């Protein structure tokens, strides 16, 4: 695998993860639990989708086949998507959305902090911009994990259920393959073991503070590094890609 091939796949993995998460979050727009929170979650969706756009645009330029960001976003099938399975999980109730988002925000916080030091200047630049946004997202979603955990019995149970159900998708976030190995040699990719240590410590503290129990001995799902997903992704793409695929010659 050449550096270029690895960089393409790596960037796509990051872009897809942001795109699918943004897509899920934006399903809440107009339907949030109250107006201020609707605006806040939409803002997070906006930031994340913006990051996805920058990353996928960069992936298209690395690939060098004259494709645009939209060609990559709208004309790949689910088996060609590399987003983490966590991001495609349905929103469920608000606790589930918040727990999923807090897990991802915490991951992104440490991940983009490392990626900001990448020798690839474009990735480092995107990471530097993203880290400012993610810092705010993490603060927001962590505060809701605390409120749910230590709020009412109902909110506590909902948050704990969400944690128990979603935890099986956390293992995948830290998987590394040949892509990572090639790029780590070049000082481009992030060492996910390092991110994992920091993420675990942070999550442990957050859950403890929130009176929630961190799931232990969970069997971890895997697959997205090979483009294998849960059943949900194909539906997300069917909805997202319908219009450009219906009119493939059109420019929007």
């Amino acid at each position, binding site marked *: 695998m050449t550096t270029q091939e690895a960089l393409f796949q790596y960037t796509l993995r990051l872009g897809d993860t942001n795109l699918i998460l943004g897509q899920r979050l934006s399903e809440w727009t107009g339907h*949030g639990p109250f107006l201020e929170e609707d605006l806040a979650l939409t803002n997070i969706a*906006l930031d994340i*989708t913006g990051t996805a*756009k920058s990353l996928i*645009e960069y992936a298209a330029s690395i690939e060098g086949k004259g494709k645009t960001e939209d060609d990559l976003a709208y004309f790949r099938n689910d088996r060609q998507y590399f987003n983490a399975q966590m991001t495609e999980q349905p929103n469920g109730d608000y606790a589930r959305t918040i727990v999923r988002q807090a897990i991802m925000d915490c991951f992104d916080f440490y991940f983009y902090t490392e990626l900001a030091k990448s020798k690839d200047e474009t990735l480092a630049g995107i990471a530097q911009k993203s880290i400012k946004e993610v810092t705010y997202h993490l603060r927001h979603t962590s505060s809701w994990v605390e409120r749910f955990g230590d*709020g*009412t019995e109902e909110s506590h149970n909902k948050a704990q259920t969400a944690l128990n159900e979603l935890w099986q998708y956390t293992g995948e976030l830290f998987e590394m393959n040949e892509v990572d190995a090639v790029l780590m040699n070049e000082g481009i990719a992030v060492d996910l073991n390092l991110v994992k240590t920091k993420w675990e410590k942070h999550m442990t503290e957050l859950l403890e503070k929130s009176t929630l129990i961190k799931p232990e001995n969970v069997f971890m799902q895997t697959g997205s590094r090979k483009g294998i997903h849960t059943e949900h992704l194909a539906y997300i793409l069917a*909805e997202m890609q*319908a219009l450009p695929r219906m009119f493939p010659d059109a*420019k929007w």
Partner: protein
Amino acid sequence: MEINKFEEVFEGKLAKNEMVEPKDWMPENYRKHLIRQISQHAHSEIIGMLPEGNWITRAPSLRSKVVLLAKVQDEGGHGLYLYTAAETLGISRDELLDNLHTGRAKYSSIFNYPTLTWADIGAVGWLVDGAAIMNQVMLQRTSYGPYARAMVRICKEESFHQRQGFEIMTRLAFGTEDQKAMAQDALNRWWFPTMMMFGPPDAESPNSENAMKWRIKRETNDQLRQRFVDQTVPQVQYLGLTVPDENLKWNEAKKGYDFSEPNWAEFKNVISGNGPCNKERLAARNKAHNDGAWVREAAQAFAKKRNEIYVAA
């Protein structure tokens, strides 16, 4: 001071084009009229998030997805300023929302029409926000201070939205045959409902007279409607589309277009709950509010606990 003295001061402010502020005395009818108008406006912003939000997950390019998300978020933000402005008149957000959810309060009828295609997102930005701006520009100089100030910010953002809508229409109208047909279809469906946004003809407008007297409104429904048509027709021509009105004709004597009256029977029907989406819109708002109840309760319970810990320490 006797009531008539208060009234003199109030009338004096209006006469001098000065703002009325929350702590000033104001006639009860003026307060009620404002609460009705500002809260209707706020509800319209919030309900308006639904037809536009309908296309966020299906926006056909990443750029248009990001722009639409930002736009719908702006609309929610407008709702927030306006609810806050209404609260300065002595009514709570809970009461206002309750009026919306139970169907007692009205919102702009235009949002009871469905957004069926991507071109509808263009048409809503271009026509609906365009019409809204016509109404709102004059509200920047409305007599009630908090409302006027909210409108200054809202107008700035709405003009971005209108440009964004027009950009979508431009891409479609100058795109493939299918795209152009999609644009024309959207124009056909949104033209008359947009004209209705200015309200019934002046002769039949029940709330206009006081609104003009109090400088809550500064131009009549018919004046605004005429201005909208005169401004929009050249844009339709630029796009190479056709206004769906056989009677549309330039009238040199009045330096404006003659045009057909919208179907006012349809207007009345949509206002009284029989539009294509009235029930869905209200059901969606109610569902969001009811599903959010435990979230709001959790936040309150948590705040209370933390406050007790803080006080005990």
